[in-house]
């Protein structure tokens, strides 16, 4: 009888240790968050470059965080929220097609997942970018437009800075959007959006 008890306790301990190990391994990594350095986005002075004609962007490259991702057009879903690329393609980023294309006057908007059920996604490291980092956009007209990061900020989703992201501008700007901040287990969503503000330099 005592031997059976020992066996049971041992089995429980082994199973418990195994499950704790598996659970720890499956805990998702927390995406890096911006440190809030850099000038406020609206105060950045843009270099005077002639605007480009409209052309669909096809690829985004961000050397600092090793991103090289194809772009697909997105718009809004039925509820009016910004679409994101399908989750089964976590390495793809979206270009907001109703807005301007990268290189035109105004702010071009790209959006990508921070993570997926299997782990980090295309914009997982976006919060690591700092002012001066570069973003390259390859376009369908074979041009490559280069942007420099001005600021990286996190905003609660309920106070999303619509004007700073989609608002008009005389210079060619770029906005990269993903999720960040605390993960709310109840809603199954991150509470913030991380936004990279960049301006065309070449």
């Amino acid at each position, binding site marked *: 009888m*005592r031997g059976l*008890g*020992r066996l*049971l*306790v*041992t*089995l*429980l*301990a082994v*199973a*418990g*240790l*195994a*499950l*704790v*190990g*598996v*659970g*720890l*391994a499956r*805990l*998702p990594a927390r995406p890096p968050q911006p440190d809030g350095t850099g000038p406020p986005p609206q105060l950045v002075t843009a270099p005077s470059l002639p605007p480009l004609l409209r052309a669909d962007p096809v690829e985004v490259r961000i050397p600092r965080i090793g991103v090289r991702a194809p772009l697909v057009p997105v*718009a*809004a879903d039925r*509820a*009016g*929220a*910004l*679409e*994101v690329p399908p*989750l089964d393609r*976590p390495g793809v980023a979206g270009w*907001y097609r*109703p*807005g301007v294309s990268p290189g035109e006057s105004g702010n071009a908007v790209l*959006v*990508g*997942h*921070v*993570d*997926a*059920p299997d782990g980090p996604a295309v914009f997982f490291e976006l919060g690591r970018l700092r002012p001066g980092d570069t973003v390259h956009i390859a376009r369908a007209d074979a041009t490559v437009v280069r942007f420099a990061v001005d600021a990286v900020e996190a*905003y609660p*989703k*309920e106070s*999303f800075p*619509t*004007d700073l*992201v*989609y*608002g*008009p501008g005389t210079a060619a700007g770029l906005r990269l*959007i*993903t*999720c960040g901040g605390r*993960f709310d*287990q109840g809603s199954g*969503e*991150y509470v913030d*959006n991380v936004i990279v503000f960049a301006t065309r330099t070449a």
Partner: protein
Amino acid sequence: MKATQVLVPVASGIALGALLLPGTALADTTVSPSTTPVGGTVVLTATNCNPNSGDAIFHVTGPDRDQNVRSTTAAASGGLSAELFTAGFTLGTYTVAATCGDGTPDGSATFTVTPIGGAQAGGRDGTGGGGTLAVGATLLVTSLGGAVILARRRRHAAQAATL
């Protein structure tokens, strides 16, 4: 002094004035706010229109829209204004050109209809490894409790044997 020597500077001055004036006098249509999530309301104002000349007409053109909106109120800051609801609008940038009741144009302005709120760009599994971790911890605690009970029983048995 020849007439041409006088006329040339005068003509240049008039031409320069003609170039500068439109920028200050004609751009008098405003849209507030200039960016709105779809379904929001923007206020169109023609600041130079005289309400006594009749309603102003705002001609709104954009991605899939070509409509006229008639002014409804005299703006507090002067001129005439109207509210425009953007429910059902296609996302994009729209141009508003105002014409006063007496037929004079009152400039134009643009506004942008955007998606609502932020982006839902997180796709991780809501439970992650948390559930597995909790079950594992429960099993560990249970096994610990079992080990304590077994140890106490063994101690009691040993004490009983020595008596």
